[in-house]
């Protein structure tokens, strides 16, 4: 869309859909997912390699035009997140980092407090910091002050496909926080991605809903269209809600008395 540039972390993107790289049946599908969805940003995790087995390198499946957003998954504290971020940057694929600090294994709820700490340290080291967080306005404000370049509130717990359970809290962030809001986690359907965009989110990140669909490539396409439609709807200005019917043609001149 012209005049709707999405500038984030020092880059200009033409798609407001970010995708994750997990749960695919094979990493070879990743370029198809990016192509079908038009997404330009993909998140990856950092893990110890298995010295006994030669594992394939996921980077070989990610087109070089794609923007890599490494995450700090595995970190349970700010210090662990900082350590992972520094290692990720050493790969030479850019300075974006998505902070994930999680010590709750059932719901994978992010630790806002540790995330704020990690944001401050990493922003000072020149990273473009994208904190994944539980939508709390004060925590978001602290992340802004700490130097984040966007805020990534969850819609529902990771992998649950439950949709925008945190809708009203996310709405508050969209209204009150000056940075881009990227709804991340829990989006289970293209309609939910559209819903987040209609609310005024700057972008959404989707992984499980695409990767675990029967046809991930078609689902990636659907999400791409949904994010565009939702953004268009937001820019067009949605009509007001009404309690009673509002007829679209005059209630006179009927072909009857």
């Amino acid at each position: 869309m012209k005049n709707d540039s999405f500038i984030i972390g020092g880059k200009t993107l033409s798609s407001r859909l970010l995708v994750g790289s997990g749960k695919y049946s094979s990493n070879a599908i990743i370029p198809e997912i990016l192509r079908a969805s038009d997404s330009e940003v993909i998140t990856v995790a950092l893990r110890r390699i298995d010295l006994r087995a030669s594992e394939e390198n996921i980077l070989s499946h990610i087109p070089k035009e794609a923007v890599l957003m490494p995450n700090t998954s595995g970190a349970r504290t700010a210090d662990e997140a900082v350590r992972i971020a520094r290692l990720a940057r050493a790969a030479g694929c850019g300075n974006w980092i998505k902070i994930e600090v999680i010590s709750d294994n059932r719901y994978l709820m992010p630790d806002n407090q540790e995330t704020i700490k990690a944001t401050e340290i990493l922003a000072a080291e020149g990273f473009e910091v994208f904190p994944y967080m539980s939508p709390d306005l004060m925590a978001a404000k602290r992340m802004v002050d700490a130097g984040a370049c966007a805020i990534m509130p969850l819609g529902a717990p990771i992998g649950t496909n439950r949709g925008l359970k945190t809708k009203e809290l996310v709405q508050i962030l969209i209204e009150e926080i000056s940075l881009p809001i990227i709804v991340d986690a829990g989006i289970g359907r293209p309609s939910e991605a559209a819903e987040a965009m209609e609310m005024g989110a700057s972008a959404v990140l989707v992984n499980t809903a695409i990767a675990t669909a029967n046809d991930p490539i078609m689902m990636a396409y659907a999400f791409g269209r949904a994010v565009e439609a939702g953004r268009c709807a937001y820019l067009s200005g949605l009509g007001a809600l009404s309690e009673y019917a509002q007829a679209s043609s005059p209630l006179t001149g009927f072909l009857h008395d």
Partner: protein
Amino acid sequence: MIQMVVNGEKVILEHATTLAMFIETQGINPLSIVMEHNGVVVKQDQWASIECCENDTVEILAFMGGGSK
């Protein structure tokens, strides 16, 4: 004989090795990994100049699909 810990496991080296040589003998593609040596991130251009010493801790990581799950 040098013993170090690599990715949390004990590894015995027959003779003096640099990080670069260690990676090569393990058959690891240097372009796909990042490394930490004794808690410090070491970039690829430093690997050939770092000697592996007794009780060194080395972490060798690579990007993989996914995130927290």
